[in-house]
């Protein structure tokens, strides 16, 4: 017998005769937040800040200047631009724009200062951004290697209140990255320190129409 058959046979023998397990009851809450878009937005803002993301609010008219200002303040020499990023977002950014081509290596990305992306959705109750590689998001590595990530969330369309609401909207077939604040570690005396391998600065732009 090969290992597969051996393991499956052992599993079957192990539970043979065991009573049936009770069914899963999903009587937990779908959301912990009142169904009020303004409250959900404020909660997202608060929770992002709580985990040390820097949060900015703007609208379509202001986004170009806001993003340009964030890049300039960072002293960004270059910015990574994923496919499908609305051109207005970077219209006023003076630094060099770098495309993430199939041939760019991790070392190439390491030389870039900042990256600007959209997201698939944001979860208010946990202060989480979820990226799924869709338009304006690029490959997973582009939001990982540069040290500064600017992520734009469309208000209210991309905001959900809770984790269960997020799960219902996400496609498991896509590679998903859930981001809650900048990279951090609690490995030294269980004390949270921001900034290890992922971007150490996370700017979140809440973009209203």
């Amino acid at each position, binding site marked *: 017998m090969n290992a597969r058959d051996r*393991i499956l046979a052992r599993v079957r023998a192990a539970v043979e005769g065991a009573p049936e397990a009770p069914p899963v009851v999903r009587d937990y809450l779908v959301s912990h937040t009142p169904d009020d878009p303004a409250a959900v937005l404020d909660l997202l803002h608060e929770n992002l800040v709580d985990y040390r993301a820097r949060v900015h609010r703007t609208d379509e008219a202001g986004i170009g200047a806001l993003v340009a200002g964030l890049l300039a303040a960072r002293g960004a020499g270059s910015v990574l631009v994923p496919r499908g990023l609305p051109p207005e977002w970077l219209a006023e950014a003076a630094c060099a724009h770098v495309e993430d081509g199939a041939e760019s290596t991790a070392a190439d990305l390491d030389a870039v200062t900042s990256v600007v992306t959209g997201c698939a959705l944001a979860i208010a109750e946990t202060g989480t951004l979820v990226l799924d590689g869709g338009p304006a998001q690029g490959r997973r590595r582009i939001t990982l290697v540069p040290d500064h990530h600017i992520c734009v969330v469309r208000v209210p369309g991309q905001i959900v209140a809770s984790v269960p609401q997020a799960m219902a909207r996400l496609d498991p077939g896509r590679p998903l*990255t859930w981001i809650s604040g900048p990279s951090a570690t609690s*490995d030294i005396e269980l004390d949270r320190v921001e900034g290890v391998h992922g971007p150490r600065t996370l700017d979140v732009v809440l973009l209203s129409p």
Partner: protein
Amino acid sequence: MSGTFVGMPAFPKAARDAVRDTTLRGNLRHATHTIRDKRAKAVAELDDWQQLREAGKRIKDLTLRHLDRHLLRLEESVTAAGGTVHWAADAAEANRIVGDLVKATGETEVVKVKSMATQEIGLNEALAAEGIHAYETDLAELIVQLGDDRPSHILVPAIHRNRAEIRAIFRDRMAGWGRPAPEGLTDNPADLAEAARLHLREKFLRAKVGISGANFMVAETGTLVVFESEGNGRMCLTLPETLISVVGIEKTVPTWQDLEVFLQTLPRSSTAERMNPYTSMWTGTADGDGPQTFHLVLLDNGRTDALADDVGRQALRCIRCSACLNVCPVYERAGGHAYGSVYPGPIGAILTPQLRGTTSEIDASLPYASSLCGACYEVCPVAIDIPEVLVHLREKVADRGGPGHRLEKAAMKAATWAMDHPGAMAAGERAASRTRALHPRRPPGAGAWTDSRDLPELPAEPFRDWWRKNRT
């Protein structure tokens, strides 16, 4: 299960050494108390915690009851998504599979994201024997690896080290493994994290093979999930060309929706956060994004033995949050190393003897390394009744050993140790009486799959009495 630390003394001896080490005790006490209070706060934010806990428990129980079906489904989904599935009955088989896969790439270096399963099977040592260097990339694992040390906590393997010790390890050892520590490194945690960032970055950027575990595997979609904080996981999961994930068969959940439960309970139980900084989910391979070759190694290594025990099998629900370690009065005093395996604390005391059997003195003594206070059950997000399993395993040890047997002696020494430490006992008994009042007793006649909202059958008599009675 391999990975017994060679020459590991039985629990009481190792615990005695730990208690004498005042630095270790200070480090542990500080760290576990900090996280304890934070966890309580993070959990209190959710009004439906008990419902989430019960749902998590039932999802796991139902999966385990039909594990064969879910594993086959998982295999089908992962394969359809472009991955290759391997099955490993034990540690040796898993190590051979991974070694062969790495050799087939022609590489001699791999980067690793923290994984209990690969520690359990001793993968790094097995790869080293084949001439393959495995670099640990989690900060705490790096501290352990550079310090030529052993992990002592599930989540924070270097919890026994304080910042001054970490600084010394980095200063003395980094150069031997790659980029040296920066000149004038201080013991400020931010500086230590920066040193790790610089040291590991060159390894991430050139890595061709990544090795991981997974917190969950979704049978219906073939999705694997890794929770982490630092971004080293994302590096290992997305930059290499080949990804090999070694995962225990009990990590399976049936549906995508099931994750919504654990995505809420795991971060709050482990790092006491609403959400950990990074969670990666991947399904096979994705065109042009991340590794183009993906191997999943499904590991048994004693899990089916635990599954066959109708009381002990609940240990397989464990999602490795480490909350039970952080509240355990015995762990706090004895330290993680005393448990003699990669799974320390209350979960280690019930999991290790089941995975490895109770034939060695250390494993036979583990079920006795507890005051049965029940604090571990209270915090467990999947409601594992650890005291119940401990009592059950004690009976098994007693059956096997008999009076005067060396195993029984080891066990009794562990019990004596726990009893002779008034601190460990008193804290334990306090916790028990505190939590006791909150819950009704379990109704008589409840079967093997009980409801978490009922109290575990804590021994009504205090541990001291229990011990006296069972000693003779």
